[in-house]
Structures are given as C-alpha cells and as structure tokens.
C-alpha cells in the first residue's frame, strides 16, 4: 500500500501517466487492471461462465433425455461428429453397425460410413420441456434431423443402459457446479461470522475458535465426510440428500475463510485509517462495514473462488464411493460410479474420461480464476 503513496515527489513526477493513474485509481479499478494482466485467469473466467451457462441451459443443450435408456446401444462408443461430407457443409454422424463378437460374447459397434445420419441445429424436441423451469420449449440445440428408430447420436458414447453420456454430463453440470456455489454460500456465512467474531473480539473467544478450526483442519476430510454421508438414510428425497451433502462438504470449507477474515480484522484493526475513523467518533459497526469489509472483500472473493473446486471434488469423491448423491440424481460423481471398476473402464473408457474431463476442466479453470483474483486482490504488490 505504501509503495506508491509514500514515494517522494520527484519520483512521482517521473512516473508515467499510467502510474499516476494507478495512484489515484479506485479499489475495483485497480483490481480489474491487475486481473486483466493475468491472461490465463481471464480465459478461465470465460470458461467458467460458459460452463455455468451450459448448466443453466442443460435441457436445451443436451440432445437426448439423460434418463432415456436404449437396450440396443449398451456401451455404444462415441460417434464422431463430422462437419463436411463430399466437400459441402453437412454435419453428420455415421450410423453404428452392431455385430456380436461370439468369442467375447460382447456387442461390438462399428461406424458405417455408407449410412450418414444428418445432424442439424434447432431440431424439434421429442418431448416439450421447460427451460430454466419456466419457459416452455420445443426445440433442442442440436440433434438428428430425421430421427428414425435404430438411429443414434452418441457424441460421447453410451453407458451400460444405453443412456447418452453427453446429455448426462451436461445435466450433471447442474448438480455438480451448483453444489460448489451453494456450499460456498454456506461457507461464506459461517466463515465471515465466525472469523469476524474471532478477529473482532480476540481474547479467549479467539483462542477457542482458533482451536476449533485447527481441530477441523487436522482431521483427514475424506473419512470424516464418509462417516457423515454414510449416515444419510437411503430413502431420503433427492433434494434433501443434496442439501445435507452440501452441508457436510462445507463443514471444512469455512475454516480457511474464517482464518482469512480473522487475519484481515487483526491486521487492519490498527491501521491509520481505522484509527482515524474511530477518532472521528464512528461506531464500531460503522467502521466494520464502511472501512474494514470493503478493504478485504476482494480477498474474500478470491478465497471463495478457491473454495468452490474443493467442494466440487468432495461431492465427486463421495458420490463416486456410493455414499454421496445417489441415482436417479445426475452429478459428475454419480456418473463416475459407472466407471468404478477397471473392467468397465477397459470396456468403455468414455465412461471415465468424459465426466473426468468435465471435472478437471472446471476445477482447473476455477483454480486459475481464484489464483488470478487473489493476485488482483493485492493490486499494489509488484505493480511498480
């Protein structure tokens, strides 16, 4: 903070216009200027927005009903989508020809280039649905132009019951990505309240809360989550399971936020501008909300962003083990249950790698975004 404001006058004049702009720029402007330089974080922001959009419009984007089974196409491999045929633009997939391998007693699928199935955008949906739960729609983003029985469109393959992996991953994004958001919201409330109390009051309250946080952080998370998640009765409605799992997952998440908030409270409590406000007769609550909170809100946003991926990973791990969310809920972890043993993966690698790619991309992007935000939250550091 002092890097720029305490510069002697002669050096200030030698700074370029950009530098002088920096000296008087507001907090959010500095934040944005610094964030913009972090190209990967910027790209990640775009990726994340895109993924949440996909989750929001899952019904529109997924070509098939994620729960529709098709006994004809169990473990059908991905059909690659080609955009051109005979030099003209005509998106299509090749029809799958099924043969029974008498040796291994397995169905084997081969694409048949002689039978292209035309794919087009904005095709009529088989059943009408409500987009975002309110807008009645009869169109899907893409699909087979003239679907006939026996035709298939499995962009990322099909699972054990012939369900479309692509549609399931798109629908899974709704649960998997929102669990991070809901969990972070719970962590935010817990972390800011408890961390604020700890940092503001100090003394034995602070000591007790710090011990509690240390305790929670010293227990290995997976066994703890497993213990709590396994106690959820199997018969519970999906929505309730969802919320309890979110609660369990955010049980640990709030601790890092509470530490961050406490640390900021402690370090800012005796800053000049806080003392000045106090001498001016401002109330403690006023100081907290007018001066303290705005000065560390960017740090909170960064910490929150970094907490989302760990929650996504936690849900995925629990559901994968079979003690988190259960089918018929679709989440990325539930999808990975299908790929639980190496035999299934060896027979149909797309069961593993499609949901895995979705998880890795979203977690990677969220981590990069959080990293960029954290750097931007300290705008004066290494600016000069």
């Amino acid at each position, binding site marked *: 903070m002092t890097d720029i404001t305490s510069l002697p006058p002669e050096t200030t004049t030698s700074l370029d216009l950009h530098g002088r702009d920096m000296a008087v720029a507001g907090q959010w402007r500095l934040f944005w200027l610094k964030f913009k330089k972090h190209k990967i974080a910027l790209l990640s922001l775009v990726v994340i927005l895109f993924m949440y959009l996909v989750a929001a419009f899952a019904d529109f984007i997924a070509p098939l009903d994620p729960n529709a089974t098709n006994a004809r196409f169990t473990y059908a491999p991905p059909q690659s989508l080609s955009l051109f045929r005979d030099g003209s633009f005509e998106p299509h997939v090749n029809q799958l020809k099924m043969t029974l391998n008498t040796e291994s007693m397995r169905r084997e699928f081969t694409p048949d280039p002689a039978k292209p199935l035309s794919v087009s955008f904005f095709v009529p949906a088989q059943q009408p649905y409500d987009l975002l739960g309110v807008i009645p729609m009869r169109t899907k983003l893409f699909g087979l132009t003239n679907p006939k029985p026996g035709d298939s469109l499995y962009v990322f393959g099909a699972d054990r019951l012939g369900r479309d992996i692509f549609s399931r991953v798109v629908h899974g994004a709704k649960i998997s990505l929102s669990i991070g958001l809901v969990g972070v919201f719970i962590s935010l409330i817990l972390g800011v309240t408890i961390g604020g109390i700890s940092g503001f009051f100090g003394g034995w309250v602070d000591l007790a809360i710090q011990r509690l946080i240390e305790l929670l*952080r010293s227990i290995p998370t997976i066994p703890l989550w497993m213990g709590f998640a396994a*106690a959820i009765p199997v018969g519970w409605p999906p929505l309730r399971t969802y919320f309890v799992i979110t609660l369990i997952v955010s049980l640990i998440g709030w601790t890092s936020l509470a530490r961050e908030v406490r640390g900021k409270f402690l370090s800012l409590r005796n800053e000049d501008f806080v003392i000045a406000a106090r001498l001016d007769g401002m109330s403690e609550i006023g100081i907290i909300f007018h001066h303290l909170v705005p000065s560390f809100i960017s740090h909170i946003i960064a910490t929150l962003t970094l907490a989302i991926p760990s929650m996504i990973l936690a849900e995925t791990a629990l559901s994968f083990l079979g003690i988190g969310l259960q089918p018929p809920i679709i989440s990325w972890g539930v999808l990975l249950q299908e790929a639980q043993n190496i035999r299934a993966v060896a027979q149909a690698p797309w069961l*593993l790698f499609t949901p895995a790619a979705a998880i890795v991309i979203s977690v990677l992007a969220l981590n990069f975004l959080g990293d960029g935000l954290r750097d931007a939250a300290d705008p004066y550091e290494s600016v000069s």
Partner: protein
Amino acid sequence: MLRYIAKRMVFAIPTLFAVSIVAFIIIQLPPGDYLTTLMADWASQGGAVEAGTVAAMRERYGLDQPIYVQYFKWIAGILTRGDFGISFELGKPVTELIWNRLGFSLLLSLLTLCFVWAIAIPIGILSAVRQYSISDYAATFLAFFFLAVPDFLMALSAMYVMSAWFGQSVGGLFSPDYVDAPWSLGKLADFAQHVWLPVVVIGLGSLAALVRIMRANLLDELSKPYVTTARAKGMSELELLLRYPVRLALNPLISTLGWILPAVISGEIIVSVVMSLPTTGPLLLRALLAQDMYLAGSLILLISVLTIIGTLISDILLAITDPRIRLQ
C-alpha cells in the same frame, strides 16, 4: 526445547478428546442402536437370541444409559482394555481386523510423504531459480493440473493406462503368490513393484501444492539483501543457494506437514478403495455401507489420532530446525 515439546503435547490432548467425540457421534448417527442391528442380523440368520445375552451386552456397552455414560464406557474400554467394540458384520472384535490394515495405511502414507518431499524440493528450487523459464511454466502448469485431478480419477486412469497400454494388471500390494507368504526379499521386491503406483497417484496432488509453496518461499528469500551481500562477496551461486535461502525456505515447508498429512491420508483411503489395497480405505467404506458402526467409528478415530500425532511430530521437527519457533 523440552518445555516446548511438553506444551505441544498438552495442547494435543483437547484435540484428541474432540476427535473421539466426533468418532462417537459418527457411531451414534445411524438410527437404532448397535444391538437392534445385531439382533436383526441374528434373526435374519435364523438364530435364536437369548434374552440373557442381549441384557449382558446391553450392560457391557451401557446402551440403556444416558449418552455421556455410553461415551465414557466406550472410551474407557479403548483406553484401558484396547476394546474397540465388535464388528457385527464380520462377527469379530474390531481390534482383530484393523491393526494389520492400519499398518499398511501408515506405511503407504509415509512412503508417499517421502516421495512427495524428495521430488517437490528440487523441482521447487529449480522453478524459483529459473523463474519464468519454460521449466518453471511447465512445473506451474503441471502443478495446477494435478491439483485439479481427483485422486480416484488419477488412480483409475493410471490403472487404465497400465492395463491397456502396458498389459499389466494392477491392484493390491502383492502378487497372489505373496499375499500370505512371510516377509522375505522376494516379497519385498514384489511389494516394491506394486507400491510405487499408488504412492505416485496419492502423492501427485500434494506434490503439486508443495512445489508451489517451495517456489514461493524461495522466491521470497532470493530477493532479500543477505543474498545480494553474499553474492557481492563472491560466493559461488550454488553454494550460496543451498547454504542460506534453501534452508530458510525449507522451514515453512515442514509446517505444511500439518495439512499434507491429512490430505495424504484422505487420498490413501480413496485410492485404496479404487486399487483394492489391503489398507483401511476399503474396510472403512465397507463398514460404512453396511452401517457396521463400531468398526467404522474406530477406523475414523484411529486415522484421526494418527494424523494428530503426525502433526505433533511435524511441530516438534519444526522447532528443532528453527530456533525462532521454540522461543516464541
């Protein structure tokens, strides 16, 4: 020094107590008590349940008494007699089932820690000294990538690659021939052949985090005036690096053991389930799915206690290497 160690050990007692309460809550969570489950189990096998047996067991575990008495009986049994209760699913005392598996869990975690440290420190140093070079960017990107891949996905992918590309079957810690054999050089070699894959899989996530921390610590140190002074005095670059900044940068790394250890143990549990290793992971999952709560609770308790002891050791190590901590 002794005072510091004693103080840390006293501080660990409330934590251990709290962990035991958490484990006890987990045991109590499923509806119905242990005996109802047990009797339902016996009845389903057609066995007659004598009223006397039930009453005796109810007395032994204090199931008809208030919850704090139950907790006290449970913890007293563990502390005085080493009695963790009975696994009703397997019909054996919990102690018979867990020690062997706990040993393998501990061994696997220790090997993973050694692997992580041995690899993370040189890469971190390289990354910091050659900041913004291609190797630095590569290390940073890989670190982010491995942080984003969940352990179990890594395990599954590794197994898939090993079996599909190298034609090797993976899983377990021993070949079938050696599972029940007594320890010998051959068994040790067989163990080494099996153990490296889980160790790498569990370690990669923590490795990535450690490389980042080592790099950041060393970068902080490298910009300090004493480095410039030493350089101005004509000290050779390598000697300078290893003698001062690296040693200082290692200290915060030791304190990371406190959270690396829980992460490694968590990873070990879930990777063991996927790769079916004979450690606590598969046993814990099976116990939880069958609601075999004494077994599950004991495992969670012991895993947590081991972690706390590990953290305690790391605190003491830190105090030994860094005198500033002792004097605080």
